[in-house]
């Protein structure tokens, strides 16, 4: 059964009319539907402005969607009251892209990781301390550095702090919004390995929002491709990478730089005329859908 089910999600942003300009409404997320199975890593890719980050934030109601449904374990998250939503967030957490701006510079690492426990009134002081030390160990941070401030950590270590914070409440579902793209190349692989280890140990389900397609190909079981607010193709990673169907997916995959000077290259340039805006997703191979 699907752990998370998004159906017909819509988010419109409106710029009000002013004295000298007309109001404008854009659909950042335009009728998006997908389901994530328990224990899988589901990739969401697309160019900047395609709506992938907005989709992730709407799922946790960090941004209120305009319409649609987000079902978590069968319950519609968008119908929850404030109190019920807070409760639900224990089970669904997010790790942000930028480990520099997503940690409060005035808080010690211990306080940052402990904060969710305090907010949700979990454990006594000593129990919380023990839990924070355990989380530090879990994400590969040295518990001797608990009292340090974020600036005393490297980018990779900061992302581990963000991950420890997200894991503090024992969630089953994590949204990873470009979790390694701000990190140095030599450190990215460490964090990716950690994410894969944690998924196995804690039976986590991931929504992995990314633009690094090589990484998506490596760690995601299924992928959805977003273009101008819509999912234009979704399917098992192997099938989608081997036989992309939508013109945008074809262009996107052909644009990945290949780290091999002798690899044959065939660049497909996106011809917008080829995109059928009215097309709906239809199944073209087992579990592989494309709007063509």
């Amino acid at each position, binding site marked *: 059964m699907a752990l998370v089910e998004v159906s017909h999600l819509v988010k419109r942003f409106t710029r009000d009319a002013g004295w000298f300009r007309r109001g404008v409404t854009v659909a950042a997320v335009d009728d998006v539907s997908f389901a994530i199975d328990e224990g899988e890593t589901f990739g969401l890719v697309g160019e900047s402005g395609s709506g992938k980050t907005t989709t992730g934030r709407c799922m946790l109601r960090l941004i209120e969607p305009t319409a649609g449904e987000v079902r978590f374990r069968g319950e519609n998250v968008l119908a929850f009251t404030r109190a019920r939503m807070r409760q639900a967030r224990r089970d669904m957490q997010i790790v942000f892209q930028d480990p520099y701006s997503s940690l409060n510079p005035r808080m010690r690492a211990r306080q940052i990781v402990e904060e969710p426990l305090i907010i949700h009134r979990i454990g006594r002081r000593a129990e919380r301390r023990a839990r924070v030390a355990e989380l530090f160990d879990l994400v590969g941070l040295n518990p001797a550095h608990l009292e340090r401030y974020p600036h005393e950590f490297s980018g990779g270590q900061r992302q581990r702090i963000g991950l420890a914070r997200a894991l503090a409440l024992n969630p089953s579902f994590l949204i990873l919004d470009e979790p390694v793209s701000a990190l140095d190349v030599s450190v990215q692989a460490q964090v990716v390995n950690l994410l894969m280890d944690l998924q196995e140990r804690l039976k986590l389900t991931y929504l992995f929002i990314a633009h690094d397609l090589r990484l998506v190909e490596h760690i995601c079981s299924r992928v959805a491709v977003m273009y101008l607010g819509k999912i234009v193709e979704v399917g098992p990673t192997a099938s989608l990478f081997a036989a992309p169907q939508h013109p945008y997916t074809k262009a996107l995959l052909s644009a990945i730089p290949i*780290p091999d000077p002798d690899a044959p290259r065939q660049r497909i340039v996106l011809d917008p005329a080829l995109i059928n805006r009215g097309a709906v997703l239809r199944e073209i191979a087992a579990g592989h859908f494309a709007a063509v």
Partner: protein
Amino acid sequence: MNPEPGIANHNPEPRTPNPEPLLRVERLTTVFDTARGAVAAVDEVSFDVRAGETLGLVGESGSGKSVTALSIMRLVQPPGRIAGGRLLFKGRDLMTLDDRQMQAIRGAEISLIFQEPMTALNPVFRIGDQIGETLVVHRRATRREARGKAIELLRSVRIPNPESRVMDYPHQLSGGMQQRVMIALALACQPSLVIADEPTTALDVTIQAEILDLLREMKAALGLALLLITHDLGVVAETADRVAVMYAGRIVETGPVRDIFRRPAHPYTRGLLASIPGGRPGGRLRAIDGTVPLLGDLPTGCAFTPRCPDRFDRCPTAPPPDYPVGPEQAAKCYLHEPQSAINQQSAVTNQQLPYGPR
């Protein structure tokens, strides 16, 4: 140590005499003055850029690759300063030029493309005027000529409707279009060397591919040399003729692109290539242990020692010099010291590690 650093000098075998490179950077050292003394961001860096070639300068944040670019343009701002070395461009040492002479080189002979076009372009001037200004300053063009040339340049970088776009302000263009304007600006005076500092990092992958294609075409059409600074090994493999790998302010390996990808000789280069996602989906990636060291707190000897899987007692003693590992390839690693006993061992590692086609 080699008396004259520079890639050309590491060649142990005779080969066809190399014409004078377009740019020869010799033992460039750029330091930043801090409360705890001078810290070298660029430490005795030497390399050549040959006429018409693309040299990929690869490194992570803090490796000194951007400071190297700024140093070549002599644009390092205090507390940074160039502390030593020579910058031979067409045989002239840029270090000896006065400000006025240097100004005549910048933009006209050597130009720079930055990572963020939005911050590099002036938001309050029309793009046509920004391109035109270069021509007015360097080529004494009239305003009218400059406008005509700006339209021509915008057309050459394939901006649609250049006649009307020339009147646009930077914010009216997308990121990819802004970077095309930056390229037009960089090419306005037909320089012989273009330094591009992470020109596609801020762009989407499809736009990145278009910009790299454009740079390649422009390079071929105008016969210019390109110093491409990037952290993306995929971009390097697709664009560069030769590669220089930087780590902690030093160039640790140089060589032709094919040799670097097929037979990487420095453990850092091997580690970078091995850590690229690939192979069996879901398998663990081959990460490099530890983190990039902070400048000012570098390990003694080879700065990569604490993270190196092949380190041995010699590594922390002194920074290794360049050792030739191929006709045009050199690595700063004691594994390749000719009399080193470990040399044999490295040959084994070498066979296991190269990043092969997938």
